[in-house]
């Protein structure tokens, strides 16, 4: 892959902002357009940018295979767990309003959706990076 | 019988043959003379069963062998081809 100092430098500058922006979108999910998926993709894209501008191995060191798997699974499990939590307290799957917290049901919903957004964000960012890195590996080696 | 010589063997065989023919004759006579209760007009005929046995046997053999020779009998690997 062809990279230059210019590209690398710009990438180094852009990546933190990208990730920050992604996180912003994740946490603003409940109140504004955006959410776990979109934010997760943006954060994942920052990894992809890293891999493109440097090389695959440096991206691998930032998010290794094991970390990606762990993030991926944890995110999904968190999401499922929060859904199943509602079953435990006697509701329907994903019926967040029923969770007994000292807040109004709407607020509980908002909170839970935020948490779910985060979970999905973790899941998706690992996934997006994994997809790219796996596909790139095949060609590189 | 194992210890007899050839001419004696032949004699015994001939003797038995004659006995057999005699038996056949006796049977045919019996069939004529005992009272019968036939099912049909033909099986009450005298010596019907004797004649039927002899002719039936011979005809069966001849007809079947002819059928076999010209149609039904095939060499043993007929189906293997």
């Amino acid at each position, binding site marked *: 892959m062809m990279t230059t100092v210019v590209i690398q430098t710009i990438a180094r500058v852009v990546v933190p902002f990208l990730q920050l922006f992604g996180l912003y979108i994740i946490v603003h999910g409940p109140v504004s357009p955006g959410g776990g998926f979109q934010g997760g993709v943006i954060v994942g894209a920052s990894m992809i940018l890293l891999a493109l501008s440097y090389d695959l191995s440096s991206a691998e060191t930032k998010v290794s295979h094991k970390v990606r798997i*762990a993030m991926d699974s944890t995110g999904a499990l968190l999401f499922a767990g929060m859904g199943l939590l509602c079953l435990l307290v006697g509701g329907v799957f994903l019926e967040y309003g029923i969770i007994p917290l000292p807040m109004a049901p709407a607020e509980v919903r908002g909170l839970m959706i935020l948490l779910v957004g985060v979970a999905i964000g973790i899941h998706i960012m690992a996934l997006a990076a994994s997809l790219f890195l796996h596909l790139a590996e095949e060609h590189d080696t | 019988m194992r210890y007899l010589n050839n001419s004696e063997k032949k004699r015994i065989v001939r003797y038995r043959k004659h006995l057999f023919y005699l038996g056949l004759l006796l049977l045919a006579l019996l069939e004529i003379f005992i009272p019968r209760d036939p099912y049909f007009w033909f099986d009450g005929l005298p010596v019907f069963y004797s004649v039927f046995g002899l002719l039936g046997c011979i005809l069966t053999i001849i007809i079947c062998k002819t059928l076999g020779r010209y149609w039904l009998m095939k060499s043993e690997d007929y189906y293997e081809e």
Partner: protein
Amino acid sequence: MDDSIILVVMTPFVGAYLSPLLGLWRERLCHLVAVAAALLSLFFSFRLAGSVLTSGTIRYWVGGWEPPWGIELVVDPLSAFMCLTISLVSLLAVIYSKNFIEKELPGGKMTSYYTLILLLIGGMLGVVVTGDLFNLFVLTEIFSVAAYALVAISGKRGSFIGSYRYLILASIGTSLILLGTGYLYIITGTLNMADLSVRLPAFYDSWVVFGALAFLLIGFGIKTALFPLHTWLPGAYSIAPTPVTVIFSAAVSKVGGYSLIRVLFTIFGLEFITDLVPVAPALTWVAAATILVASMFAISQTSLMRMLAYSSVAHIGYVVLGVALAVEMGMTGGILHIFNHALATGCLFFCAGAVIYKTGIRRIDDLRGLGGKMPLTMAAFTLAAVSKVGIPPSAGFVSKFYLSLGALEAGEWIFVIVILLASLMTAVFYLRVINLIFFGGDKHEGKVQRDELPLSMLVPIIILALGCAVFGIFVGIPLRLVEPAVMVLSGM
């Protein structure tokens, strides 16, 4: 509301994400996780079946939102029946995987294998319980993608090509399903199946509805592997790892059939598909062609796996034939055959996999004399084959009998001939194998040890084989679910 309905789907999915996590730590744990997940989902299936039997169709609103807005899960007797079949076969396949996968998939693929297989199971169960056409499509995609990967997972020569061909055809199928779904959505403005069935009659004369029906039929036809859309199947079946093949033949293609039934009977309704647009009669002919042609192809195969694959295609034809006859007996036979065929074909593929595991044999001619080497396995093979031919008192006979009665009930005596002829043809190719196995002399003198398989492989084989015999005698057990399912489908 009964939570089993969501748990039955979520358990495999949770297992699917738990297994890579635990796999990072100890790879062997994946198997345990998978077994536990499958076992739990079987347990929930049983509970589901119980509550369906006592209280009729169950509706479940995810998140508590009402159907037009929220996602609805619906379990009627047919869904419960499918759930049981799928989770039973899946559990056995997962148990069977233990030794098989350790030997056949070296090099750290175990984690991905169990993740994928659980995704496959979860996807199928999801398809079965969902009450929403779009969810049906999404879940179909989920299990299809898992299936593509599982076909290719061994990385052996030909596995990529097999997977690729499967992928191309199946993607065409899913695209058509999506198109059909979209058409229905455009015209009715809803994706909920129950809603659709209420709103559709107003649009019965619309070309859009016909188009949607055609797209959905072809799409699910590919998934079901109806002739001539079956071409992906033999390649995929013979290449995938055996437990996966078992799930494919016993569950995946049946889920295609199930979706077909849902589309035809639940969404469009009996009247539409038999009278207004005679789709069902056309399907019966397609199914009949599938049965005969696939049986013929099976006779000509030299590889055991491919032979079984074609035989499986033929038997899916039985299912579709029975259902498409759209009379009570026929539908009973067709739906019952989903279960009976799952038992038999699962057992057969397990046995074929066991032969591969132990000897590496794939060709039918090389099977000579294996009966003496693996007596239990081969006895199970025979039992399952007998069930497939449809000899009493095996389970296969029962469904064959009901199908024949159904064909007569529908006044289509020609299908009785098809069924009987096909069972003769089935007998031809299974008898050939059985004869080679038991009476073909001994080709492997000394080469193959006389011992049975590891327990993890033997137990599923024997359970399925016994199932073939037991459910031929105690027909009442599956019929308890099948009969109400037929009632619900035919709107009685």
